[in-house]
């Protein structure tokens, strides 16, 4: 998932994925790291292991995120989920075979270059959303057939709002199904 953090007014979107082995993959654009987060005691005391270096930290939940105390510093971090895109694993395990593609951030729908019934491949463009003059392409996370379009160009959407729904697999997954 993508997490938007804000420190001293500076926003930073961080890619976070909790992996099966308990490590957490984090990336802030400048670098990608595997970290482990171990609980030391209570709700607040942790040890974070980054690149084989263990750092004791205290993370105290606040109304808008967390205060992180590491070394001599305390850093107030605003935290929110920015891009709740379902992972491929989530898509496959979805029993209904129906996949909802959501807006990665709050913004304006610029284009939905698809029609209901159309087949798409994994990675095909299904929507374009604009926020703060940035266009973001939204891709189909898996191959399938467009089952439903929930929004139209020009519409304001919230972060995480469903844009289109895809029926996964079977007929729609055939090669050349996309334009």
């Amino acid at each position, binding site marked *: *998932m993508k*997490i938007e*953090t804000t*420190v*001293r007014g*500076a926003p*930073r979107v*961080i890619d*976070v*994925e*909790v*992996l*099966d*082995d*308990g490590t*957490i993959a*984090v990336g*802030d654009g400048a670098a990608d*790291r595997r*970290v*482990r*987060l*171990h*609980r*030391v*005691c*209570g*709700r*607040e*005391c*942790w*040890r*974070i292991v*980054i690149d084989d270096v263990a*750092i*004791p*930290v*205290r*993370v105290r939940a606040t109304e808008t*995120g*967390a205060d*992180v*105390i*590491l*070394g*001599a*510093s*305390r*850093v107030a*971090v605003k*935290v929110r*989920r920015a891009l709740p895109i379902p992972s491929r694993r989530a898509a496959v395990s979805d029993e209904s075979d129906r996949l909802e593609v959501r807006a990665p951030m709050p913004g304006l729908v610029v284009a939905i270059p698809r029609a209901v019934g159309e087949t798409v491949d994994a990675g095909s463009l299904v929507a374009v959303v604009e926020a703060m003059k940035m266009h973001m392409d939204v891709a189909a996370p898996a191959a399938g057939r467009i089952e439903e379009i929930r929004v139209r160009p020009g519409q304001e959407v919230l972060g995480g709002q469903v844009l289109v729904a895809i029926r996964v697999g079977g007929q729609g997954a055939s090669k050349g199904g996309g334009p």
Partner: protein
Amino acid sequence: MASVRRVLIANRGEIAVRVIRACRDLGLVPIAVYAPSEAGAPHVRLADVALPLPTDEPSAGYLNPRVLVDLARQAGATAIHPGYGFLSENPAFATACEDAGLTFVGPPAAVLARCGDKAAARAAAVASGAPVLPGTPSLERAEAAAQAREIGFPVLIKAAAGGGGKGIHVVRQPADFERAFRLARGEAAAAFGDGRVYLERWLEAPRHIEVQIVADADGGLVHLGERACSLQRRHQKLIEEAPAPAISAGLRARLADAAMRVARELGYRNAGTVEFLVDGDECFFIEVNARLQVEHPVTEAVTGVDLVALQLRVASGEPLPFGQDDVVIRGAAVECRISAEDPHRGFLPSLGVIDGAVDPAGPGIRFDSGVWVGQRVSRHFDPLLAKIIAHAPTRFEAIVRMRRALTECAVSGVDITTPFHRWALDQPDFLAGDYNVRSADAWNDGPSSSDADRVAALIAAAWFAGTASGATLPVDGAPSRWSVEGRAEELR
């Protein structure tokens, strides 16, 4: 120890635990008292008998002589150890104990009374020949300028009837004196209806150094060297060490000599501390703390003397078991006070419930703690939770050990002062031993850096992802819950 067999400890937290341990080492019976909210506290668990106080409110409990004396009688105690704070320096409490046939583990009431009166203590210091800050009685304008020149600049002008900082002026140059003197008199007259002022030498950035003394009832008196306690915030000490770094052998000897003189002049008994301000190679008496001090363990570390056991033995009438020549300082020790305060917001008290704690340990580390999981840190009591003491052959090694201990020490649920300690132990001035009572001001609510910001953002994101997903993150030593669940899913 005829008179000291069953000891009621009229205190709480880490110091109550400390006294219980000394009782155990001497084969005495420790009796604890506790406020209703403290039933789970370590001092309750470790004592042989634990008696509840009526309320958490200190005035009806830890600060109430009658309640404590009644509990002591009820428990069959023969002595009361007051710890520090609360009633430890209260002459009326010492008298109430003696009247009830209980041995008060501390100086006699008359000595407590003299030490508690600043003017009387200063007079005793002057009479003993110990150096005090140069000052004057209240002055008229005509003589003032000459007196100021005699004391030297900077000089402090204070209202004789004063208090609360009104009418206080620091004058740094002779040229400014006349104007400041007029101003101070005017302010004093307006604020207190009394325009009398007096002068005192002003030290810009003194060091706080104190000498530990112990005296028995037969006139035996020794000092156990000095401690440096200059890192302070709002007159609260944050880090102490023994011996004092970066002072001359001559100054060290003069400090000890002055402390012994003051103790003799006061007819001191039991353990006590004589405090000084040090400016360059000069020292000036400030006051006597007529009790055990929070920072006593650094002296214990470098001398090998158990000060609390010694207090109990001296109180029971035993003579000091060693002489001055037997006191040898070995290595160096540093103490960090772990308090429930927010160092990033002016050291404001941090209240809450402690839901987890990890004690530091290992070579050279002593941890005196009153912390327990489930403890409610309330407004009723002092914020001091615990103390880490690091001892090593050299000062630098002791600091390195302290850094290690600070990374191990963890408390969840309230803010604690360790971020300040970690900062202080990295400051070049501190490492050089060249610091004073103003040095802690440079902390200024803590450092910030773009590196810390960046790492904190990563940590917050990982923490959010880990906890918001509903999964429990792995506990130290236990296999990751995700890997366990992942395997369970594979086997399904």
